[in-house]
């Protein structure tokens, strides 16, 4: 277990930033641990979700943003559903991912890369092109044969399309991406 000097690494503006962006009040958390008790991913996390909440209350920005936990959370909503203080914990985890992404501090590169491959496919075609997304992920991640064992199975079932279904309004979908990027640039 890591030892943190809370005074040295305290970042008050981070608490404010997460509260504002998530619309949640992390100080309501009294560390009952119910979120962690129900979290299906806790065995894979470096910090259980209740500890992420505690780290947030103590403004431990760098530890949180570089944690694996925020990227291995699947937004299954168990924590949010069971929090006795009615904190939308999954929304806080989501906000933390968004901030980590913005600050280029992503610990689980493959997870982000998969999401990016997915979104690139949507930007290009308007809809998700499953084969293209997988190939793009495999090439960019270096995991050239990720899920190669599944190929023959879906092929045999006639579930694979080798060409994307391009929608007419794909430029309109692409515009959502560019408008967002322009806006993000403007606001730094």
């Amino acid at each position, binding site marked *: 277990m890591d030892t943190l000097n809370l005074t040295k690494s305290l970042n008050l503006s981070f608490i404010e930033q997460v509260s504002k962006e998530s619309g949640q009040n992390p100080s309501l958390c009294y560390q009952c641990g119910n979120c962690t008790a129900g979290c*299906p*991913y806790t065995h*894979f996390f470096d910090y259980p979700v209740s500890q992420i909440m505690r780290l947030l209350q103590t403004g431990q920005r760098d530890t949180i943003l570089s944690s694996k936990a925020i990227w*291995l959370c*699947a*937004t*299954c*909503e*168990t924590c*949010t*559903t069971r929090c006795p203080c009615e904190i*939308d914990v*999954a929304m806080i985890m*989501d906000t933390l*991912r*968004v901030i980590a*992404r913005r600050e280029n501090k992503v610990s*689980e590169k*493959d*997870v*982000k*890369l*998969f*999401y*990016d491959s*997915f*979104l690139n496919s*949507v930007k290009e075609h*308007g*809809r*998700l092109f*499953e084969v293209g997304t*997988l190939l793009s*992920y495999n090439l960019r*991640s270096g995991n050239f044969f*990720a*899920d190669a*064992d*599944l190929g023959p*199975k*879906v092929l045999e*079932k*006639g*579930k*694979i*399309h080798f060409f994307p*279904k391009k*929608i*007419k*309004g*794909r430029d*309109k*979908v692409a*515009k*959502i*991406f560019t*408008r*967002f990027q322009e*806006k*993000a640039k403007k606001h730094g």
Partner: protein
Amino acid sequence: MAEKEYAYYAGCSLEGTAVEYDMSMRQVFKALGVSIVEPEDWSCCGSTPAHTVDRVFAAALAARNLTIIEKMGTGTVTVPCPSCLSVLKRAHLGMTGDESFRNEVNELLDEPYEGGVVPKSTLQVMLEDVGLDTIASKVTHALPGLVVAPYYGCILTRPPEIAQFDDPENPMSMDKILEAVGVKVADYAFKLECCGAAFGVPKRDMVNRLTYRVLSMALEAGANCIAVACPLCQQNLDLRQGQVNSTMNTSFNLPILYFSQIVGLTYGLSPKELGMDKLVVSADDIVRSRITIEELAQREANAKAAEAEAKAAEKLKKAKVKEEDTKTEET
């Protein structure tokens, strides 16, 4: 039920790896007299990846579709995929509940969304709008021997503020629909336990370990089949079942059917049209086990008659033994 028209947002998975969900859902709706129309030129909802980027951006990808659906004038859009549903509902609720959020989202769109669409899962439309009586009235076939573990996945009913449907801890909508069509439903404790969601590609081991638990618990509940309502759950449990077997040293052979396929089978619909052959773990045994309800009634009557006969024979035997006993006593 007066025929009502719904917009039907199938989502990207239902064009590819979950094509059998689309096929069976359409067939079942047709049988129930529910008329559905696909929104023209719909686009991807953004799903999980978009909300790791930004909330407004994610809502915009979803809201482009809400704008298209709003113009159709159906009022309600029915959505088979829980991930699409959740994203569409988040966008709708966020935009109708918060004006500044709505403006921010609309700034990213060509045409604004005004808030006039109610997204509902296909399960919700069946349960609440069609109703269990109508669902039951279309049954022509039975699946004797089938015991189903109803698996809802994480987000179909959660969080309750977004889903606004069924129970967030012990959902029953799928249980009720399956029971209404005469299928035996197992008491399944893992209805909501996450299957690994969208991590299949980048974190395969993690997903295999999670699906292992979902599959094991279904067997423990006495089920010989799992019913799902989510393309991602289905993919993780069905397509990746072989991976689970090789990594976890197990020998699962558990068919994973969409609830709509099971309903369709009880309606006597053709297995081919329900996409039964699209499943990776074969459901052929289930298809073969199908009999008409008349046959089932005959079988049950025969079984009852045989039972009554056996009972009568037993009674006769007992009476004979007693008679002989009294005879021996007398002598």
